[in-house]
């Protein structure tokens, strides 16, 4: 199987702090790979580097064989990596439908002339984008909220919109940073269903999540990061039994919960 994403010898130093010491992992095409680890392990930092928001101190990021290290976030998105944010992030002051249309940016190509003269091609494209936006809102269960301002949505809906926005951009690789954070059990279930559907549509997914039952159920592969280093990588069953992982998580409620769920 081909690796869609390769992270090679990544190191990120922020000031004097070593956020990531040395990390290498791969995300095979078509899989759901979870990146887990205790708070402050460096997961979000890894996302920031992969998507171009931070420059690594060392190491390379290869996407589909091409070196994308240090490219600007918009360029990386153009190549097909789109992320969601750990802290809820939506286009404020805009309706849910407008949010969706904004996230569909890459699916259109109308330029200045098309806009100024309302060329037929631009009109057709606009109609197509609107249809796609509606379809995606139906798909993510946000269609009834289409006319609502994004910041007015309930917390759970906002998080769903955040994932939807990343998914709408139809990335080849979707990075989700704690999509289930702060969701109640039924919302979490809905969130998992959504992620599964996205995978079934052909997206490769790299997931950061603290909800261990969710991680265990969703992942093809789990990569464990601790204090900026990868301490384990493998199938959920291997990870669950890995003594070093257990030690890293010792005393963490997450892990007991996970063991519970697995039992």
């Amino acid at each position, binding site marked *: 199987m081909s690796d869609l994403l390769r992270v090679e010898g990544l190191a990120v130093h922020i000031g004097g702090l070593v956020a990531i010491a040395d990390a290498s992992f791969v995300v095979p095409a078509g899989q759901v790979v979870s990146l887990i680890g205790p708070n402050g392990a460096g997961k979000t930092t890894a996302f920031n580097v992969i998507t171009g928001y931070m420059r690594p101190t060392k190491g390379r990021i290869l996407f589909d064989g091409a070196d994308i290290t240090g490219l600007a976030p918009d360029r990386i998105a153009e190549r097909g990596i789109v992320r969601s*944010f750990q802290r809820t*992030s*939506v286009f404020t002051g805009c309706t849910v439908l407008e949010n969706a249309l904004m996230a569909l940016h890459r699916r259109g190509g109308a330029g200045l002339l098309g806009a100024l003269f309302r060329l037929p091609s*631009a009109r057709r494209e606009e109609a197509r984008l609107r249809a796609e936006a509606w379809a995606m809102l139906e798909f993510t269960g946000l269609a009834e909220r289409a006319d609502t301002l994004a910041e007015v949505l309930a917390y759970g809906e906002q998080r769903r919109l955040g994932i939807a926005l990343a998914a709408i*951009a139809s990335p080849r690789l979707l990075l989700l940073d704690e999509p289930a954070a702060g969701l109640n059990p039924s919302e979490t279930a809905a969130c998992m269903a959504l992620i599964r559907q996205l995978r079934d549509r052909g997206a490769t997914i790299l997931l950061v999540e603290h909800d261990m039952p969710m991680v265990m159920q969703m992942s093809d592969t789990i990569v464990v990061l601790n204090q900026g280093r990868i301490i384990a990588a493998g199938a959920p069953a291997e990870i669950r039994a890995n003594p070093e992982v257990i030690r890293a998580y010792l005393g963490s409620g997450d892990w007991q919960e996970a063991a519970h769920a697995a039992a």
Partner: protein
Amino acid sequence: MTAPDGRSAEGRGELNRSRLHHYAPWVFVLVLALLPLAFPDPYMLAVLTSAGIFIIGAISLNLLLGYTGQLSLGHVAFFGLGAYTSALASLGFDIGIGFGLRITLQPQPVWLGFIAAIIVAGGFGWLLGRLAFRVRGAYFVIITICFAQVLRMVALNWIELTQGPMALISIPPFSMWLPGQGVVPLYSKAQNYWLVLAVAVLAFIVVRQLVESRIGRALVALRANESLARSVGIRVTHYLVIAAVISAGIAGAAGSLFAHYIRIIDPDVFLFIYTVTMVIMVITGGKGTLWGPVVGGLIFGLVPDLLRGHARPEAQWVLYGVAMILFVMFLPRGIVPALASLRRRA
């Protein structure tokens, strides 16, 4: 925000209202167009014409300030560039550029000057966009202020080209083909009024087409949440530069209209107070709305002249300051959004 205009016009089945939305602007333009025939008062037309020129400037500023959220406090630079470019093109010039070389330009038709004004201002918009959008926020504001100041210094000191403080005089007026008269210079107040009205409508339409398109959405997305916008592949520099070029080009057109209407320009066209006037027009009217600069522009373009007989000119600046404070306190989003939300509640 596209919302106040766009949202109520679609969906919801409010057919009558959206019809009204569709025709009201054209009725407004028609009324303005018929005004000189109904009230051929030259003083009123003169006031409306200069207000109109500033409204075009405000419309252009709104594209940057309202839709991209970038505060350009040197916006008058593009206005002044347009004015000087157009004036110089129509007057012609003959200057030395060192090494015994000279550049000579024979006087050109005014409409060529108008186009040159748009291109030169737009070009500088591009340059400033490339340069300044690397440094956002306060630095951008400072760079734009400096830009206008530098141009003012150039206009003051490059006397061979600009006549410096002696001003460029005898600038020819626009000329136009009129039915039954052939190509004639536009000397009358009404003719200039119509010309400015036509350019203002055109500028409004250009901005509307732009902001109600995929490009406009990208601009609003960048303003609303830049890192999210970039994460879905919206290129910051690309779109901000498009906005800067178009904004500067329209400001240049306004400058050209100004030069051929007033027919004398001096380095004071670069004065900071003109930028401030445009900023106030946009903010009081409602930044990021299509009608904001028109409404704000009508108020702040007309009120000072209405007060002229009754108060000293300094009072105008004081009035600006007070109005600004009142607006920031009571109507922070401006008149148009406030009216829109009133109507939605009704």
